[in-house]
């Protein structure tokens, strides 16, 4: 959709007249290498020592597959739930003025600040069959703690601020005139939200989703308390890695980690491509 002449091959974007392009690029690359690339390649290196057949055997092991399925599945559901409710929370915080708004706003960040183990223990005691909420759900036949549902709840708690904090600033920038224009054209409130506002927020919502999802996949502290950690049922991949480490089975641990890494990378890459595409289109 580029209106300019077609460019051949790759090229650096023209650096601006403000000096420092070389310095900042060099710093960024060195920093990313040191903080992210070296540890991650160490991981791949370590799991490569396993050899292809052993690696594959661990990868398709039923326990590994189940753990991965639970990790990615619960993270996906939790991120999806957060997208819906996080967007609503952001909407309320941006659009309405009510007493206690600032407190509510600050509260959104608490899951960031709280040690995740504390969150896990608190949630477990609430949702356990004899806990405040758990005993209400028990007669309905809903069991939360020690099931994948419990994992989802822990991940919803952990992921909420990611969605709220990415959507909120974009929502604040929505031009009131765009809504007014839609209203004069005859659109009712529902149509304005679904056809005008939501599509404009979609890139931010996708970002929030991917952040919450990525965080959920890697989450350990809060989940292990509420999950019950039954192999094949409520055992998450990060826990399986820790179990393997405790067995001094470093190769297996790194192999599972490498698989998680690859899956996460592919998913985040897809999300990023979707972002680039929508940004190019909507400017």
């Amino acid at each position, binding site marked *: *959709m580029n*209106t300019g002449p077609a460019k051949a091959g790759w090229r650096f974007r023209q650096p601006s007249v403000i000096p420092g392009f070389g310095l900042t690029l060099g710093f960024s690359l060195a920093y990313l290498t040191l903080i992210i690339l070296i540890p991650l390649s160490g991981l791949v290196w370590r799991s490569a020592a396993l050899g292809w057949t052993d690696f594959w055997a661990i990868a398709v092991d039923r326990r590994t597959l189940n753990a991965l399925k639970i990790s990615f599945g619960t993270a996906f559901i939790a991120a999806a739930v957060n997208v819906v409710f996080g967007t609503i929370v952001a909407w309320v915080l941006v659009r309405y003025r009510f007493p206690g708004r600032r407190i509510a706003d600050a509260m959104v960040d608490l899951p960031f600040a709280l040690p995740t183990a504390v969150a896990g223990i608190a949630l477990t005691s609430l949702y356990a069959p004899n806990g405040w909420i758990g005993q209400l759900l028990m007669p309905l036949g809903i069991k939360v703690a020690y099931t994948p549902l419990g994992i989802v709840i822990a991940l919803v708690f952990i992921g909420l601020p990611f969605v709220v904090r990415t959507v909120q600033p974009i929502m604040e920038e929505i031009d009131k005139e*765009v809504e*007014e*224009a839609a209203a*004069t054209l*005859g659109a009712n409130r529902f149509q304005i939200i679904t*056809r005008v506002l939501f599509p*404009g927020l979609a890139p931010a919502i996708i970002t929030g989703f991917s952040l919450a999802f990525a965080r959920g996949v890697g989450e350990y502290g809060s989940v292990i308390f509420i999950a019950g950690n039954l192999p094949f049922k409520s055992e998450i991949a990060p826990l399986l890695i820790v179990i393997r480490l405790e067995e001094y089975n470093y190769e297996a641990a790194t192999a599972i980690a490498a698989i998680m890494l690859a899956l996460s990378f592919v998913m985040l890459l897809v999300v990023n491509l979707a972002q680039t595409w929508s940004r190019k289109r909507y400017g």
Partner: protein
Amino acid sequence: MEVRVTNVRKEFERFPALHDVSLDIRSGELIALLGPSGSGKTTLLRLIAGLERPTRGAIFFGDEDASQKSIQERNVGFVFQHYALFRHMTVADNIGFGLKVRHGATRPSAQEIRRRASELLDLVQLSGLEKRYPAQLSGGQRQRVALARAMAIEPRVLLLDEPFGALDAQVRRELRRWLREIHDQTGHTTVFVTHDQEEALELADRVVVMSQGRIEQVGTADEIYDTPNSPFVYSFIGESSSLPVKVDNGEVWLADRPIGLQAPPHAPSGEALLCFRPHDVELLDGCSGCIAGTVAASRRVASTRRVELEVGGERQRVEIELPVDHPAAQKSRVAFRPRRWKLFPAS
């Protein structure tokens, strides 16, 4: 559709933005709301659209009381200064939006909507840009799309809020002429807001001059320019100079000298304000019955020379315009008498 605004008052949190404004807009008319910022012109436009509700008074579309209706029901086309296009929609989808959100039988088929969109694009001279996104258009093109989008719903009234305010001078002039053509072709009753007097005088059938939440004067460009009815309109429209004078015995006095002007028959005696156009003056040689002053400053402005004079004992400053090569500009003392002028009671 004729629009009647009757005794409308609008307050924002107790602060009055409009005081008791009444205005009749004829069907098919192109009318400009002109005034400085804070004069209430945009508020009046938004009240007509239904984007604000009047504190008191009513707005009629024809015989129907529109103030009881929601924005959606009023069926007005509104164009914003900053376009307010839907960024995630193509040009064609933007234009078709108003038709697409209709319900049931009133909604045209997708094909019909596409046809209408391309018809309107032809009208605003942007044929072939259906598939573009707003981000890929220039400011002038975006505003044309915004106008096409507003016209797609066949509005009863077309309202434009500083439609050319965000565009550069050249494009403004071009779009101004073009808007007039579109109006003559389609005949929509159109109200537009501007703070640019040139735009208002050139484009509109009638101009509504507003100041501080009130309508000062309504009239054609000629009426507004030639017979302003208040010092504000005098100074806001075109160049003007004013001097505090005294009316006594049917004559106009500056300080203690008569300046050779006969006050109109009904003018009350006492303090008054004399207003005239700087270019509409007659230069005099000698002076018994004229305004005389020492030249304080002289500037070349386009094809004329603007001379600032200090007049009378209180050294009142007053501006007049001279032809560039007029010898009077070299002198230190200039005497003149306004050719057309008007007296207003001193405020």
